[in-house]
């Protein structure tokens, strides 16, 4: 799609969608909006059709054509994005786009980009992240997974955890320790690892909601060609920073599982829930002044969340560096979402504590647990992780205090000491 201006980009994008997207989806979007689209389209159907969208280049219009993009100027890409939003064509492969791609752009070789970026865009190679370890959470840089050189390959041994979609993924970005005698950040290397190999075992990890969104990944002499190393040996921490900020963004402010973020924002939904509750059980919903006040503040804070993000975007658009307001999204958004989800569940009253179980539930209550769980309860439980995943609130507040407010760092007796000597776990 050769265009020169945002307007042309918008026109081209709309034209493409109307011509190439299944007409039933287009009609649904143009008439009924989000919910209508979900009526006529299953996630599987979308996933099957997705490569067609990718071929158009509209998934990453600002990327070079060689990588699956259209080489459009940021303004054009943004305009097209906005124009396409009503058609609900969400990007797939988020960890590929938000974690692997930034690392490849920043530190990958041209060969690596040509090899890995197009399948990411097409979603034909799904990616996940192998960073966190049981012993290295907040202190990620203390990770213990070892990578030992073996000719033109590396052999990886260790345990990773909190990997989303690992069981569906083909590749992972991996951080492993290549020099235990260097200070913790100076002995880490960044790899791209294929998951379909004998040395990789993926185990499901059930979270407190009873569902399995995460995995543990056990690496026993897993093999990675040196050609799949990103950046220099022992320079992996620098490479990772590019992707970490990516994750921050992805997690920040985003609603949690159990809440359909397409169908109306969290707090607006909360208001509706409160009104439904008031209709069902007078005095316990929107008609209870305490509920009304609580819900009103949550709605207001969600507005403030959005208006703050607008400020950040406006600053960036104006070519200026965003200020402190850009640093609070994750900490405030995660806390806010937790409170929104908890209020939603509380509006169910006693109904949040029991639900109808599938008939065969009782063969194994744990297996059956999530079936029939009210969406609000699922959301409330899932959201407990919001203040932990992507950096705990406590750690993030310290980072804000130091990097944004400039407060002095704490004396660290281990500063600069070899990783091997620092207590862990």
């Amino acid at each position, binding site marked *: 799609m050769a265009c020169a201006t945002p307007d042309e980009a918008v026109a081209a994008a709309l034209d493409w969608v109307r011509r190439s997207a299944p007409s039933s989806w287009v009609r649904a979007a143009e008439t009924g909006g989000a919910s209508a689209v979900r009526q006529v389209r299953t996630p599987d159907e979308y996933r099957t059709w997705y490569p067609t969208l990718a071929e158009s280049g509209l998934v990453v219009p600002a990327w070079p054509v060689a990588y699956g993009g259209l080489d459009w100027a940021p303004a054009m890409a943004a305009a097209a994005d906005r124009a396409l939003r009503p058609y609900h064509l969400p990007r797939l492969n988020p960890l590929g786009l938000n974690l692997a791609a930034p690392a490849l752009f920043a530190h990958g070789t041209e060969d690596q980009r040509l090899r890995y970026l197009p399948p990411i865009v097409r979603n034909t190679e799904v990616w996940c992240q192998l960073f966190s370890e*049981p012993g290295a959470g907040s202190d990620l840089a203390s990770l213990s997974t070892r990578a030992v050189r073996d000719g033109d390959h590396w052999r990886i041994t260790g345990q990773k955890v909190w990997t989303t979609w690992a069981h569906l993924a083909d590749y992972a970005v991996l951080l492993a320790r290549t020099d235990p005698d260097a200070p913790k950040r100076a002995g880490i290397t960044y790899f791209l690892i294929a998951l379909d190999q004998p040395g990789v075992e993926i185990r499901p*990890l*059930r979270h407190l909601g009873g569902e399995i969104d995460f995995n543990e990944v056990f690496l026993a002499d897993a093999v990675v060609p040196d050609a799949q190393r990103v950046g220099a040996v022992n320079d992996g921490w620098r490479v990772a920073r590019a992707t970490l900020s990516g994750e921050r963004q992805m997690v920040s402010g985003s609603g949690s599982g159990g809440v359909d973020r397409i169908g109306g924002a969290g707090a607006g939904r909360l208001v509706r829930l409160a009104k439904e509750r008031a209709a069902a059980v007078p005095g316990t919903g929107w008609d209870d002044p305490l509920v009304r006040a609580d819900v009103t503040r949550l709605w207001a804070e969600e507005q403030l969340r959005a208006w703050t993000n607008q400020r950040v975007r406006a600053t960036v658009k104006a070519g200026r560096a965003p200020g402190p307001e850009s640093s609070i999204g994750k900490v405030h958004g995660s806390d806010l979402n937790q409170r929104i989800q908890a209020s939603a569940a509380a509006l169910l009253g006693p109904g*949040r504590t*029991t639900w109808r179980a599938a008939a065969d539930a009782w063969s194994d*209550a744990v297996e059956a647990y999530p079936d029939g769980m009210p969406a609000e309860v699922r959301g409330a439980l899932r959201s407990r992780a919001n203040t932990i995943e992507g950096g705990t609130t406590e750690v993030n507040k310290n980072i804000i205090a130091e990097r944004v407010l400039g407060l002095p760092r704490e004396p660290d007796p281990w500063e600069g000491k070899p990783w091997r000597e620092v*207590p862990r776990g």
Partner: protein
Amino acid sequence: MDEPFGADVGELAATVFADSCPPSRIRELMATPAGYDPEAWRRWARETGLPGLGVPAEYGGLGLPLPALADVFEAAGRTLVCAPLFSTVGLAVPLLLATGDAEAAKRWLPPIAAGTLTATVALPDAAAGEPAVTAEPHLWNEWRLSGRVERVVDGATAGLLLVVAEGPDGSGVFAVDADESLTRTPLMSLDLTRRQAVVELLRTPATRVGTDTTGLEPALDAARVLLAAELVGVAQQCLDVTVAYAKQRVQFGRPIGSFQAIKQRAADMLIKVELARSAARHAAAAHEADEDPAVAAALAKAYCAEAAAAVAADAIQLHGGIGFTWEHEAHLYYKRAITDDEILGSAATHWTRVSDHLDHAF
């Protein structure tokens, strides 16, 4: 009984629960249909008299006062023991005694104390808009109950159901034998360590228990105090587990408990735990001394439920990722706190009771 409960009943209970219901065992029972081990219950009856703690000696129990029972429930809250403890000892026995029906007491309390009968109370949650069960007289002392109770603790397993229903002459307590024609549908419970069920009654035969209903609310308040005590145990356990973890978990080369961000949070948890304990203990004592036991019970139920939920959420947070896993116990305590909050009236309901008290108090 090899080892009857005595003075330090709380500590004794803690030992019993720890021995016979360790975390590993709770994980097993959580997955079973019944959710608890009837055999263990009968064994406790033989060995410790647990089921009969609140049953007067004349009916084969230990006749412990509420403060002592509260200590036992605090211990139960710490271990999340899977058993019909609350339904039978916390709800049914106090209500049965409150009816002052000697016949009923003679008939049901001995098997309860012996652990051969478990019981519960079926009471629609009016505050949640659930309609009352209706009772119509049949012949002699026989009645017919109709209605539906959305959530009955151990409702699927209890051998005796005490139903609070509306008769022609106001509300009363009615006994329904588990063998009678009623539908009991087990529910999936947020808190898998304490099961609930829907109980549906359709002209179900029942016998009236006592006629004087003045003891009804005090009996329910006693049950609320026991829930409050249980919630203190829940919160205390969350604090202890968190502190232990913060001492051994190392990040940035130090135990995370050495970081002030963790210390400030842990101190806040301790404050909530101790205030909750003050609330529950005062309410239990007040119930005996009956100095305004109703307000004390309402305050304790409301404060302890909120404190326990907050402390349990903090426990999940301070454990980081591991606290978010199913394998870790933190979520079980969080869910118990949320569930207890909704049993016998939520915090909102009970705060309103406290406010109503203040309408006149000053």
